[in-house]
């Protein structure tokens, strides 16, 4: 039977960051990936924020194949026939290394895998890990493609569904309340067209989030990220809301209708849809965080529940990189002590607590409760549209004072509801 010091399951950002760190320090590591190549099964919205990563593999990110530096943050509220857009541009976001970059995982993951391989990581693609290998209740390796592969420690980075964390007894199958599905199209078009349509300087990018009628009151929203020569356009909707929504609408229809909106159609006109993908997203924040270690096992990235939606920012990839690096550091310490028991590996939890990973998840642990409010997804976008319609309209009758218009649109009981929601929002 083959034996490695460390087996990493899954060549995503968590797994590859762990492998890179281990291999760099001379530790024998193999990454097992079920796709044809790293990234083949991976999907992001999406973008990566660089500042949380300044302490995690900083030497790497300077040369990463990012798409565009996001200098324009755009939020759009949609009602059935109106929309209100807030666009924020910042030179500060452009200063290198830029604050955040749009990314495509097909490019990014393959590049990171190459870096890890250069350090000595062994990569085995086209192999599914079927189970954990256990002896006396301890994880001692994996079963992959019918072969047993032993290891001192296994790092499970097998994504948001993490069947391995389930098999290890660390996680129960997720609830529809706690997960959303993101689905998107990648639409190719010349970079010049992207820069013209979004009014961008060369190389700069925009990230646009949409809230309101596009999800018909369901928890979720839309996103549009500008890549170098493509757009990533998609939706995120909570699974429970898709399953129970009234009236019932099939998921793909939301995206088809979104694409026909006048706010979107001109932006994608003439572009060529080249890929349609979907991915699971943990939406419960800190509540979905599991115990990320057991005897002979560590769990990192989405698999451990590291994902955070606070409305304006939706993050996961920085947590994946950081937790992968921290898992590798834990392995190094455990290796020095020659002790891979759960007690020894529990140092990982403390490292996570001292890092932005668990600090951010804890700070924003009330965000899911605030976001779990149907008014946010239908009522407020609608109200904003109605109010602005009245303020901008010059009709046939003499125009009333703005204050009168506002008082008509926002009654006392409405104002009271807004205050209550704001109070919840202030807990974030």
């Amino acid at each position, binding site marked *: 039977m083959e034996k490695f010091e460390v087996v990493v399951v899954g060549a995503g950002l968590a797994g590859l960051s762990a492998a890179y760190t281990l291999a760099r320090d001379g530790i024998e590591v193999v990454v097992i990936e079920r796709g044809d190549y790293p990234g083949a099964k991976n999907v992001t919205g999406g973008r990566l924020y660089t500042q949380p990563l300044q302490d995690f593999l900083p030497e790497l990110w300077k040369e990463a194949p990012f798409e565009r530096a996001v200098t324009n943050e755009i939020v759009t509220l949609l009602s059935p026939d109106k929309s209100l857009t807030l666009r924020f541009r910042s030179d500060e976001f452009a200063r290198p290394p830029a604050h955040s970059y749009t990314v495509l995982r097909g490019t990014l993951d393959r590049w990171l895998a190459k870096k890890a391989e250069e350090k000595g990581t062994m990569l085995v693609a086209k192999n*599914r890990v079927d189970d954990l290998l256990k002896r006396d209740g301890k994880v001692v390796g994996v079963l992959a493609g019918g072969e047993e592969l032993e290891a001192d420690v296994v790092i499970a980075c097998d994504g948001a569904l993490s069947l391995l964390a389930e098999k290890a007894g660390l996680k129960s199958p997720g609830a*529809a309340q706690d997960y959303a599905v993101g689905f998107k199209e990648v639409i190719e078009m010349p970079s010049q067209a992207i820069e013209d349509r979004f009014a961008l300087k060369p190389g700069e990018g925009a990230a646009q989030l949409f809230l309101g009628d596009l999800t018909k009151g369901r928890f979720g929203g839309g996103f549009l990220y500008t890549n170098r020569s493509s757009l990533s356009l998609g939706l995120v909707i909570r699974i429970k809301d898709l399953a129970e929504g009234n009236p019932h*609408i099939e*998921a793909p229809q939301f995206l088809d209708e979104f694409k026909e909106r006048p706010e979107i159609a001109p932006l994608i006109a003439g572009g060529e849809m080249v890929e349609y993908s979907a*991915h699971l997203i943990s939406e419960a924040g800190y509540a979905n965080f599991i115990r990320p270690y057991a005897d002979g096992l560590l769990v990192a990235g989405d698999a451990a529940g590291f994902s955070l939606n606070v409305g304006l920012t939706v993050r996961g990839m920085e947590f994946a990189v950081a937790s992968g690096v921290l898992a590798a550091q834990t392995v190094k310490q455990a290796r020095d002590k020659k002790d891979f028991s759960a007690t020894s590996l529990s140092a990982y939890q403390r490292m996570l607590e001292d890092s932005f990973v668990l600090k951010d998840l804890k700070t924003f642990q009330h965000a899911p409760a605030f976001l779990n409010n149907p008014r946010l997804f239908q009522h407020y976008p609608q109200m904003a549209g109605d109010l602005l319609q009245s303020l901008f309209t010059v009709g046939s009758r003499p125009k009333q004072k703005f204050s009168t218009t506002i008082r008509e649109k926002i009654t006392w009981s409405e104002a009271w509801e807004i205050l209550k929601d704001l109070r919840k929002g202030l807990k974030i």
Partner: protein
Amino acid sequence: MSPTSTMKGKLGKNVFKPSKERHISIRPGFEKDPRLKAAIYACPAGLYSENSKGEVELDIDGCLECGTCRIACGTEVLDWNYPIGGVGVQFRFG
């Protein structure tokens, strides 16, 4: 175009490597289980549908391997696994 043909067109853009075995199947006897209905609405690839007998059917071709149906319906009604290595969807952009 009907919704189904639109989706087939979309999925046709993806790179898929065919597999001999189905990695997700409805557990025998559960075809009419109400829990399966959730997948009809939640599957982003629209692969679940209800036939005239009131049974839910799954057309596995085009599966994006996202796991939504496993969360939506649960493992009592679905026998769910990822495809074996080297088959299924291979995202080029992601």
